[in-house]
Every structure is written in structure tokens, then in C-alpha cells.
């Protein structure tokens, strides 16, 4: 049994006509399902807690990448035996990685149910799959942010924007699964192929390294886990609030994500 979840507050909300089209396409593949709406993380968490794995073996998010991030945020509440699907209704970088370029490809992938096991990371009581950005609502000069890694490396830096990335997909970086980048100001970054490697690094993690505008590159660091003491509440790009002290690390649970290709590495 499949359950389809739709964020009613999504900017990419599907209409009834699209829903009908999806249902028809699913039924052609002999997939029968419920459509369930949610309006908040709390509701989503309740849906996950109430999901009985004996009845539901697959939960699919219909929406955009922001909706999927909210969905993954509460995934720890879901039984890890339940597979997760994604049906993108707008341009999606995640869908591209899962090789599901269109809604039709996504439905085909859901019907074939090829599963990838993915590591997720917890950030306080939430989770993320690929990356998460955190920032302060206001910046006061002189205030510090303390970051401690699992190897007891302690760093003090000015309050800034932080990006956490799950690097597990890159086998070269298995030993350093989370990259933490911090920068004072983000601008549009486009790395030129002819740039030196250092310039590419700078353009990847920030363009605030541009010495003309006085901004400086701050930090790029890898670790298995981080503790961040912020002194103030942090928020992410979806407007979700975080505590002043955050612990970021690998979740004990993996997720089972449906993609066009099965996980060949396992």
C-alpha cells in the first residue's frame, strides 16, 4: 500500500486535475494509494508515527525539493522498513540525482520499486539527506559561534551562515562524511573551468572570499559530527528554527529511497 503526502502549504501545490492524472498513471501501473495532506511538521510527524508498516510499505512525497526537505526532516519518526518515494512537480535537483526527470519517470520508478539505502544526518531533532543551510536572523558584530568536532577540535568564528553537506555519496570522502562550510555572505558563485583548484574551492563554498568586497573565506571542515553553540536561535532556508546548541551527526537509521536505479554499491 502506498501513501502519497502533499504539503498543503507548498508553493508547488498540485491541483485536483494533476492529482487525477497522477492517480490514473499510478493505476495503470497497478499502484493504489491514499492522498494525505499535511500543513505542518507536527502533522507530518503524527502521520509518520501512525503509519503501520504492515499496511503501508511506501510513502511518497508529491511536491518540490523544499517539501521533500520538510518530509525528510521528520523521517526519523517513520519505521525504517518503509520505503520512501519522491514525485517532483517542479524542477528538482534531487529528482535529477535520483534519475527521475519527470513525474512519469518517477511513477515508473515507484512501480519498479528499486531501492537505494541512504545515510541521513540528524540535526537536533530533525534530519537532512543532502544539505542544510543555517543562519542567524540578525548579525551583531563581535558575537562568536563555537564549533566543536568529534575530534575535539574547537573553533571560534564570527556569526555567519553555515552549510552542512552530506558527502557520503562520494566514496572518496567516506571518512569525512559531513562538510561544514561557513561564510559571512553568500553571493552567486560560478566556478570557471580554467580557475585554479583553490579558486574553485572558494567559489564552491563561498564567493565572500572575493577580496574586493572585504569579505573573507572563513571555514571548510570535515568531521563525523559537530556541535555548534550559536548563542542565538538559528533558522534554515525553510524558516525552521533550531536551538542555540546543535548536535549534528549520523542518524542510526538509514532511509530506503526509491530511485530509477537500485543501489549498486551495496
Amino acid at each position, binding site marked *: 500500500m502506498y501513501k502519497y503526502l502533499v504539503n498543503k502549504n507548498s508553493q508547488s501545490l498540485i491541483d485536483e486535475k494533476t492529482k487525477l492524472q497522477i492517480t490514473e498513471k499510478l493505476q495503470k501501473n497497478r499502484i493504489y494509494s491514499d492522498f494525505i495532506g499535511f500543513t505542518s511538521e507536527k502533522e507530518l510527524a503524527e502521520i509518520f508515527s501512525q503509519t503501520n508498516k504492515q499496511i503501508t510499505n511506501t510513502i511518497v512525497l508529491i511536491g518540490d525539493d523544499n517539501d521533500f526537505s520538510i518530509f525528510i526532516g521528520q523521517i526519523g519518526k517513520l519505521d525504517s522498513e518503509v520505503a520512501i518515494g519522491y514525485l517532483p512537480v517542479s524542477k528538482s535537483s534531487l529528482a535529477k540525482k535520483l534519475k527521475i526527470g519527470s513525474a512519469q519517470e518517477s511513477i515508473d520508478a515507484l512501480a519498479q520499486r528499486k531501492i537505494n539505502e541512504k545515510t541521513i544526518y540528524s540535526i537536533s531533532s530533525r534530519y537532512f539527506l543532502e544539505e542544510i543551510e543555517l543562519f542567524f536572523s540578525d548579525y551583531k558584530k563581535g558575537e562568536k559561534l563555537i564549533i566543536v*568536532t568529534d*575530534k*575535539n*577540535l*574547537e*573553533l*571560534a*568564528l*564570527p556569526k555567519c551562515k553555515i552549510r552542512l553537506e552530506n*558527502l557520503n555519496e562520494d566514496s*572518496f*570522502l567516506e*571518512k*569525512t562524511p559531513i*562538510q561544514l562550510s561557513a561564510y*559571512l555572505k553568500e553571493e552567486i558563485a560560478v566556478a570557471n573551468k580554467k580557475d*585554479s*583548484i*583553490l*579558486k*574553485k*574551492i572558494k567559489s*564552491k*563554498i563561498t564567493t565572500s*572570499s572575493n577580496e574586493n568586497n572585504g569579505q*573573507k*573565506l*572563513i*571555514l*571548510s*571542515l*570535515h568531521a563525523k559530527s559537530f556541535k555548534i553553540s550559536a548563542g542565538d536561535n538559528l533558522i534554515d532556508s525553510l524558516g525552521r528554527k533550531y536551538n542555540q546548541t546543535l548536535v549534528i551527526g549520523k542518524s542510526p537509521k538509514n532511509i530506503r529511497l526509491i530511485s530509477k536505479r537500485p543501489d549498486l554499491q551495496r
Partner: protein
Amino acid sequence: MINLTKKGHISELVSYSGVFIGSEVTAKGSIKTEEDVFIDGKYTGSLETLGAVELGKNSNFSGLIKARSVVVEGISKSDIEAEDSIHIEGCAQISGSVNSKNINIDSGAIVKIKASTK
């Protein structure tokens, strides 16, 4: 400013996974990694890597460095051991001990070290 043209500089060696600590950061503790490391901030502690290390112009490093190669442009009060080479730039201020196959000290560097070659 990092010299991007000199052979052996981290700019040529560092990958996207390199550890990069900028001038605004104060750090203490230990780093043990297989990656290249660039430090331009204040660091107290030990740093051990299979890769290259570059201490930038704004760096102030106190402690111990073990690496494949080390380039110093800032202030270093440390014992440095490098498998391949240690390059002390003209703008560097360095004290402590250095040990490597090749040690290169540019003119202008303020140096108070005990140097030995492997």
C-alpha cells in the same frame, strides 16, 4: 596572498575536500586528516595530515605539524616535520624546529629555528 604558481603549493594539491580555516577563525585542538589543509587563522594544537599544509599570511600557528609538505607565509611557533619539503616564504615569521628532506627559506623571512634534513 597565496602564490598560485609555485610548485608544491597547496593550491595545486588541495582537492575540494581540503580543510580550509580562514583568517576570521580561532581554533584549538587537533586535526588528523588525509586531506590538504590551509590555515589562515589562529590555531593552537597539533595538525597531522598525509597531504600538504599551507599557513597563510594571516595565520598564527602554535603547536606541531606533521605533513607531506608545508608552506609557511604567516607566523608559526611550532615544530614542523614534513616528508617532502618545507618552504618558508619571505613574509613568514617562524620559530621552533623544522625537519624535512628539503628546506627552503626565502630572503626576508624572520627565522629562529633548529633545522635538520632527513
